């Protein structure tokens, strides 16, 4: 009985050491089972130490040692697998053997097999996919129970003389079984606690970060301005629970939410030297109010006592602004918010960049479309008017029709905001345009149409086909001395609509590798790809002096009846 207590006493010292160790980063690998070499090595070293420690803490009894060595071996096996378990057991065993006594061989063998036993249990649960079970203290208790019984049996079998061994086992069996099983269970529970804390911490960290990311997504996409940053700052303020949140651009405060909002006014210039420094050097500044002094630069009575200032970095590490987290004087910055701050800055930087990119894209498309519409104008318009004024003289009725066509054409061109039209509408537009061109080139231009009727209700981006016809005339048939012919055709092949504009001039031949197109055609191609996908769009082919062919492909859409 006395032995039980003294063994438990030793065990407490042993566990205190384990507890202390659990506070260090050394312990981190033990809380997860990764099977990586570094993890296994850490397991081996730590548990070998505990194994040896268990021997030293043992109590010498009748030329043998009552000890807690088994805990190290079995835990090593449980957490590190059979190889680690065996190695830990062997290390502990050899160490024990070196200390001598009549049970030295028996102890060495039993410690090694205890390690192996732990490893086999580990393997069993891994194979079953029940990893969490390994961390159950109750399991550790059971395994140790079995291990100790096994050890006693080995001592009885191996140690000589048998009578002495039997006497020894009678004395130490119960205390050792109890102490070791309890110790292992407690040790495992320390590890399990550590694991839970760590997981909770990272879980709440990630969930915070994810919530902020989720709530702020898209807000800045309509621009990095006061209204939007105000919203983002509000969200960060709510989610992190810091004293105040501020977002600045390079010159002024864009948003400020929280303590001190009465005098930190959005729209005012940045006055804090810390912020200026952060913007100047693109570096993170943490003014904790202790190591690095912090004092609000606007009002002395300001309650804010610490600030974390993180620059928002754009492309090429250019500083776009800063995000600032504050805590009031009586409160400390939580380490979680410190690291969260950096992630937030990254997130916002990306959102700002993305918003600029989107903005430029939209501007570009709008500008391009305007350009496409403007491209039509001067030459065509004045020639058309000139033709009409000649026709008025000869055939006033025909002139009236031409004016109708011209106004129809321009009216359609002025409708900036229509994104897509039916093929039928696009063809009407082409007809209006062609009536004028046919009058101009009356003696040397023929245009043939053959469009599959089923395609007429298909939608195409505005200005898809007309620029191709215009191109065929402007750069094709109008450069021919006579007999210009343009064929416009449309058909359905394997559920793909194919529209072609073919002329007989063959003047659009460019170098083989540079498929460089005029701006107008590039826009047609881009708009088709935007609407239907990368594999569709416009392709040009040309046979010098014979023919130029422009082909458009896009998927056929079944009509909803």
């Amino acid at each position, binding site marked *: 009985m006395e032995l039980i207590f003294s063994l438990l006493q030793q065990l407490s010292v042993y566990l205190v050491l384990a507890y202390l160790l659990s506070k260090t980063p050394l312990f981190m690998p033990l809380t997860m089972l990764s099977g990586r070499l570094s993890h296994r090595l850490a397991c081996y070293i730590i548990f070998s130490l505990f194994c040896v420690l268990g021997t030293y803490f043992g109590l010498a009894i009748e030329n043998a040692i009552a000890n807690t060595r088994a805990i190290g071996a079995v835990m090593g096996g449980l957490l590190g697998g059979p190889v680690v378990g065996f190695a830990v057991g062997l290390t502990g065993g050899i160490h024990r053997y070196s200390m001598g006594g009549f049970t030295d061989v028996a102890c060495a063998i039993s410690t090694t097999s205890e390690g192996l036993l732990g490893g086999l249990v580990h393997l069993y649960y891994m194979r079953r996919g029940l990893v969490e079970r390994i961390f159950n203290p109750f399991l550790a208790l059971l395994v140790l129970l079995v291990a100790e019984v096994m050890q006693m049996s080995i001592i009885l079998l191996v140690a000589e003389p048998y009578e002495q061994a039997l006497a020894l086992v009678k004395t130490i069996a119960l205390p050792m079984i109890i102490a070791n099983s309890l110790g292992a269970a407690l040790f495992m529970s320390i590890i399990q606690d550590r694991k839970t804390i760590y997981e909770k911490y990272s879980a709440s960290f990630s969930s915070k970060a994810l919530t902020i990311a989720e709530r702020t997504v898209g807000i800045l996409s309509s621009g990095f301005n006061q209204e939007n940053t105000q919203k983002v700052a509000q969200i960060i303020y709510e989610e992190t629970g810091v004293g105040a949140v501020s977002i600045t651009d390079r010159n002024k405060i864009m948003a400020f939410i929280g303590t001190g909002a009465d005098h930190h006014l959005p729209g005012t210039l940045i006055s804090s030297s810390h912020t200026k420094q952060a913007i100047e050097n693109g570096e993170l500044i943490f003014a904790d109010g202790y190591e690095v002094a912090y004092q609000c630069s606007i009002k002395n009575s300001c309650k804010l006592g610490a600030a974390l200032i993180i620059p928002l970095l754009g492309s090429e590490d250019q500083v776009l602004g800063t995000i600032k987290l504050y805590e009031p004087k009586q409160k400390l910055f939580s380490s979680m918010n410190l690291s969260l701050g950096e992630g937030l800055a990254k997130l916002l930087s990306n959102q700002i960049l993305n918003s600029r990119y989107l903005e430029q894209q939209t501007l570009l498309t709008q500008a391009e479309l305007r350009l496409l519409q403007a491209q039509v104008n001067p*030459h065509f318009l004045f020639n058309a008017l*000139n033709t009409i*004024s000649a026709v008025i003289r000869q055939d006033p009725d025909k002139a009236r029709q031409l004016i109708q066509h011209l106004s129809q054409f321009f009216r359609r061109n002025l409708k900036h905001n229509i994104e897509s039209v039916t093929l039928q509408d696009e063809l009407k537009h082409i007809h209006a345009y062609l009536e004028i061109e046919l009058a101009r080139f009356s*003696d040397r231009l023929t245009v043939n149409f053959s469009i599959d009727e089923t395609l007429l209700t298909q939608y195409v981006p505005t200005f898809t086909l007309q620029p191709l016809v215009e191109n065929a005339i402007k750069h094709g048939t109008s450069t*021919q001395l006579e007999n210009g012919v343009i064929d416009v055709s449309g058909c359905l092949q394997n559920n793909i609509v194919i529209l072609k504009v073919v002329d007989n001039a063959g003047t659009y031949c460019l170098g083989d590798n540079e498929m460089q197109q005029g701006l107008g055609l590039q826009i047609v191609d881009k708009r088709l790809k935007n609407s239907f996908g990368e594999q569709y769009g416009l392709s040009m082919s040309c046979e010098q002096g014979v023919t130029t062919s422009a082909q458009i492909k896009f998927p056929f859409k079944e009509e909803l009846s």
Partner: protein
Amino acid sequence: MLKAIVIDDEQYARDELIALIAEQKEVEIEVIASCNNAIEGLKKVNQLKPDLIFLDIQMPQITGIEMLGMLDPETMPKVIFVTAFDEYALQAFEDNAFDYILKPVEPCRLRKTLQRVKYKMQQDNYQVLTDKPLSLIPCAGFNRYLLLKPSEIEIAYSDQSGVHIISQQADKSVAETSCSLSLKILEEKTELLRCHRQYLINPNMIREIRLLDNSLAEIVTAGGAVAPVSRRYLKMLKDRFQLH
């Protein structure tokens, strides 16, 4: 009475201009021909020697300005450019005070321009527009137009019936066509070299220079055509090819 030719590739544009010219009474003008492209225009200008041409800029194959470069500056008629819209050309016209009218043509603007042309006696110098080398040489074959690249020409020569060009065809054989450009223009604006008062030769097509008696010579081209070399030009040829 001024004789004029209207050159424009659009029928209605020609009709309109001719009608407007006829309508105005201040300057007496007779339109003696109208042409629907520059090649045809060149032929008519050489043939009919008008006092005045109305010249559209944008025309197939050879633009109005390119055509101007093919006319002999010494016998150049007065030119009135007609265009619907051509920023760059208009700028050039403005800068050099050339006469131009815009489509659709305003009758009073036409009248002013014609009055100016009538009283302006000295010839305009169109060199700013026309000093580029020629890229296509318009030739007339039997019932067809030919547009030759200067590099395809082997020999150009003149006789009583006009200027003729011997050129290499795609199959390496040679063919002869007549050309409405003068030898002088060809000499100035292409690589062709003069080897005789009536002959130009493409230096890249020379295969052989045969020296004859009396300091004369003849040139055999890649295509086998022969051009005479006169005493005066032989020395220049020798200098050029450093045959001393």
